[in-house]
């Protein structure tokens, strides 16, 4: 059987249900396109052949009925569990003011525009649709736990969540990625977030997969009139990680801020692509990503200010700390401006710890490793402190500290 036949047959095994037609169309599409390759501008630095290998191996032994497995993170939230790509209906707790439905039972319009979205849909056992009702202020963060667990062979999981935040509502969302078990794992996750007029979303994407895991994740945001988004992304795990954050501003007054921290130890490859489309003005977007790198990282931040989007204010910054001579970063800010009266700025830095400062701290009795750790930590926390969800703060602080200690400890030798 060819790989496309295997994909089609896997898609069929997942049905029949409300998604069957979509799956077979998506499988058809992916059969012709396949994975993005490094010949494509957007994928120049990130080679997905390892994701493809894991997928092919997983399709050889495709299982639709993996037992659910998960461990809730130590963060106070309404947790919704997606284990090995399957939403755990049994674990769905009711949340006041939020309607929760399975995608197979909801009436949704899913896009076919990207190969990875096709792959996602072709192999999607099911997804979730959350609707935060108009005017509701959800009491606790809503946590989406993407938990992959397999011990042997290869595991491919698809996650798909659609979140509709209706007019004037406000909600905090935690997208949490983690893994267990020794299998080679590839997760492909899509989240669509629609923030209606005057609504507010605080969002934290926390990725702590194991160091052999592969992830591609995409969050697409549509921001309504005077909508507010505060987004924070943390990547410490994964062997190969590619995140896309795509924000579309089609109504005036939107205020979006997105910040991120990525740690790439030796052997890790972490790629963050962000794109914000200012279609109208005035509106405000601001981003800052910071990276601490011993392995390899990519940051590509694109802001497009479309014709007529006058009064746009778009700022982007990316700062990288290279922790080894073999560390690599491809950092690229891209501003495309077709409007008038626009305030845009971008700044990218790549550097090492300031040796003057290391010496200064050592003359203040701190040993060299402590000095380096302190400075690296300060650099990381400079952006991690902007995580907009208080319930995550303790977890983020201690997780970042642990990850940095591991990274710096080897470094001082």
């Amino acid at each position: 059987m060819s790989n496309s036949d295997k994909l089609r047959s896997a898609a069929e095994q997942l049905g029949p249900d409300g998604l069957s037609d979509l799956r077979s169309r998506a499988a058809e599409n992916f059969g012709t396109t396949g994975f993005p390759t490094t010949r494509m501008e957007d994928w120049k630095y990130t080679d997905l052949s390892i994701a493809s290998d894991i997928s092919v191996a997983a399709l050889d032994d495709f299982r639709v009925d993996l037992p659910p497995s998960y461990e809730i993170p130590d963060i106070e939230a309404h947790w919704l569990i997606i284990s090995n790509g399957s939403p755990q209906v049994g674990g769905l707790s009711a949340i006041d003011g939020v309607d929760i439905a399975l995608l197979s039972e909801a009436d949704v319009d899913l896009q076919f525009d990207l190969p990875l979205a096709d792959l996602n849909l072709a192999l999607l056992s099911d997804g979730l649709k959350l609707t935060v009702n108009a005017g509701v202020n959800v009491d606790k963060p809503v946590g989406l736990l993407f938990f992959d667990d397999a011990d042997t062979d290869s595991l491919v999981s698809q996650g798909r969540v659609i979140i509709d935040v209706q007019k004037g509502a406000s909600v905090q969302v935690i997208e949490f990625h983690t893994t267990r078990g020794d299998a080679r794992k590839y997760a492909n996750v899509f989240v669509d977030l629609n923030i209606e007029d005057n609504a507010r979303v605080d969002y934290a994407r926390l990725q702590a997969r194991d160091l052999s895991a592969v992830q591609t994740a995409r969050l697409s945001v549509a921001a309504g009139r005077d909508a507010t988004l505060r987004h924070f992304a943390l990547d410490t795990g994964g062997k190969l990680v590619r995140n896309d954050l795509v924000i579309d501003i089609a109504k005036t007054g939107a205020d979006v801020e997105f910040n991120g921290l990525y740690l790439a130890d030796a052997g890790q490859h972490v790629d963050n692509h962000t794109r914000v489309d200012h279609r109208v003005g005035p509106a405000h977007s601001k981003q800052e990503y910071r990276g601490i790198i011993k392995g390899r990282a990519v940051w590509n931040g694109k802001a497009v200010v479309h014709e007529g989007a006058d009064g746009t204010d778009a700022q982007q910054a990316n700062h990288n700390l290279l922790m080894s001579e073999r560390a690599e970063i491809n950092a690229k800010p891209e501003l495309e401006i077709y409007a008038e009266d626009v305030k845009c700025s971008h700044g990218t830095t790549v550097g090492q710890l300031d040796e003057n400062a290391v010496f200064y701290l050592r003359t203040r009795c701190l040993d060299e490793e402590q000095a380096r750790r302190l400075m690296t930590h300060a650099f990381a926390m400079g952006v991690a402190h902007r995580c907009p969800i208080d319930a995550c703060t303790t977890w983020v602080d201690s997780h970042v500290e642990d990850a940095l200690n591991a990274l710096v400890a080897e470094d001082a030798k």
Partner: protein
Amino acid sequence: MLDIKNLSASVGGAEILHDLSLSVGTGEVHAIMGPNGSGKSTLAQVIAGRDDYEVTGGSVTLDGEDLLDLDPEERAREGVFLGFQYPVEIPGVNNAYLLKAAVNAQRAHRGLDEIDAFEFLKLAKEKMALLGMDQKFLNRGVNEGFSGGEKKRNEILQMAMLEPRLAILDETDSGLDIDALKAVAHGVNALRSPERSIVLVTHYQRLLDYIQPDHVHVLSGGKIVRSGDKTLATELEERGYDWLKEAANG
């Protein structure tokens, strides 16, 4: 206390200090003056352990112990303090956190328990009051966005917290207004004791009006070309350095 014998040091292949000797007795205050670029900061940094400078000859001992063999942090824990001519900004590292980590690292070296948080705060506030420093500086990043004078006061605060055996203050008086100068002098004088030695690197007689030195040295062209008592400072103020440079060369 501090014995420097025939010290030579270079940076980037150029020798900056030539065969320099200097002894600072316990309980003494010495002032080092000298033209720009003569090697004063180099000397201070070599004593503190900066490894950009290569020591090509000579020795530096503190109460008989070889300092050149120690890492900068070991020297600091042994009681060597360097007040930087240009204190370094360390964004995001909390000033109070650094003070406490410094005090604790030194206490650990002396076999003492960590300082109690309450005790630490009390001590820090006490020292800040002495220096006329607002407590809000505790919660700022280390020197982050501090004015020139604020940075210098912060150096003295660190010194006051660490209570060093040997303090080398590299132009701590530069860029200070009159009140700050008095506050800094007050901080230094408060530390003055029969067990401590202080080396002041300065360009101005003015500081020495507030902190009376026991000895004054002139460093020129990488060596000490003249030593005397505090009247030497007054003489330098009037005559400049040229006559000394000539004397040294001739």
